[in-house]
């Protein structure tokens, strides 16, 4: 048992943390740029362990996020599935890239996700303003190297596979 510990609980723990971060209270001026914690954490695990974390996981976590945020059931689920799909598609290339290049690609991926979010919000009637919706994508892309290093440390230390 101890020889082949695969510590899957660590993955779920990090997702729980991401859910928590995505609703935790923040100062007003920072709310506009709240990073997509779920997207970031999901991206890492999809890149690191594509056989464990895939679109099904993303969809289920998205549903939980919908309940927490009080958005339409399926909205965040759709967006997280989309992010996972894009990351899986780019998977082979993305792993070869240096960190800054990964960040740039992720900026585009998260930007697309935010765009879909914007459309869905517009469909349900809440008028979203201006270009501020790309800010979370930008912040997330800038945070990516740190999140990646942190999770990688956790991943290696605890031998999750």
């Amino acid at each position, binding site marked *: 048992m101890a020889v082949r510990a695969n510590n899957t609980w660590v993955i779920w723990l990090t997702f729980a943390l991401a*859910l*928590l*971060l*995505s*609703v*935790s*209270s923040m100062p*007003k001026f920072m*709310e*506009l740029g*709240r990073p997509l914690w779920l997207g970031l954490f999901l991206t890492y695990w999809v890149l690191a362990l594509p056989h464990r974390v*895939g*679109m*099904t996981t993303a*969809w289920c976590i*998205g549903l*939980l996020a919908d*309940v*927490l*945020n*009080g*958005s*339409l*059931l*399926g*909205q965040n*689920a*759709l967006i997280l*599935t*989309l992010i996972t*799909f894009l990351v899986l598609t780019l998977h082979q290339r993305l792993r070869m890239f240096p960190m800054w290049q990964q960040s740039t690609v992720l900026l585009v991926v998260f930007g697309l996700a935010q765009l879909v979010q914007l459309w*869905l*919000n517009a469909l*349900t*009637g*809440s*008028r*979203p*303003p201006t270009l501020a919706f790309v800010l979370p994508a930008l912040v997330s892309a800038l945070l990516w190297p740190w999140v990646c290093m942190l999770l990688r440390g956790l991943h290696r230390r605890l031998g999750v596979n």
Partner: protein
Amino acid sequence: MRLLVFTVLSAALMVVDARFTWLQPLRAQLGLIVEPVYWAGSLPVRVWDGATQELSTRSELTVENEKLKAEQLIMQRRLQKLAALTEQNVRLRELLNSAALVDDEVLATELIGIDPNPFTHRILIDKGEKDGVVLGQPVLDARGLMGQVVEVMPYTSRVLLLTDTTHSIPVQVNRNGLRAIASGTGNPERLELRHVADTADIKEGDLLVSSGMGQRFPAGYPVAIVSEVIHDSGQPFAIVRAVPTASLNRSRYMLLVFTDPRTAEQRATESAQAQEALDREILQQAQPAKNAPAAPAYPPEAAQ
């Protein structure tokens, strides 16, 4: 392939959630996880608040205490006046034969979370279905109306604030009774009155109270104070902006209002019956002493 399946599934869920009510029970049950998560999410803030409270010096506390005492004194004075006014109001309403409630029942509640999306103004409160909260119930703070309940979960509920872009409330100018609709703008310090005629009698500083139309909010609670009236000859209507009286982004404790569930007709019938019974009583009292002048009798429970 899997993307397609999940996309279709999500889209179907969204449509069902938006158009039908089948998913409501599921949502309510899933809502059980909401409270602990928000509780944990706001932990840093609360720890910080607790720490500053613990570390505040004695002099600060004394100053605050004195301020609170002064405030209380002012409130007490107002309350004295209010009692007399309420009584007078009840009597006048009796004369008018109307039994509109002067005092509504309330339930105190605490804020436990704020919607993480900065473009919507919604908050989470710590009372839910188990406490008798219902959909559409009005919520107020010490200074005025805040919003209404839009989602009820077992132990928590979500409140849509007046300033959300999707929210509107029927109001009345307190000074002259002019009716209007105040819509949210997405700015927590601003409401806008829609379709107010350019010649309407409304000016800066006017208090807007809820008019009770639309049967959602009880009448007579303060909503906002007009801050700006712009007459632009190029626009078909005047632009009227108002500042909500409730501190929408600062209040921690709120009140849930339970309005009278009876319809206006039921209320009228009941008050008519009560009046009839009262008249009969007076008549019976008057019969033994025919020449005694009929004293103006008020039912003892009227002065609540």
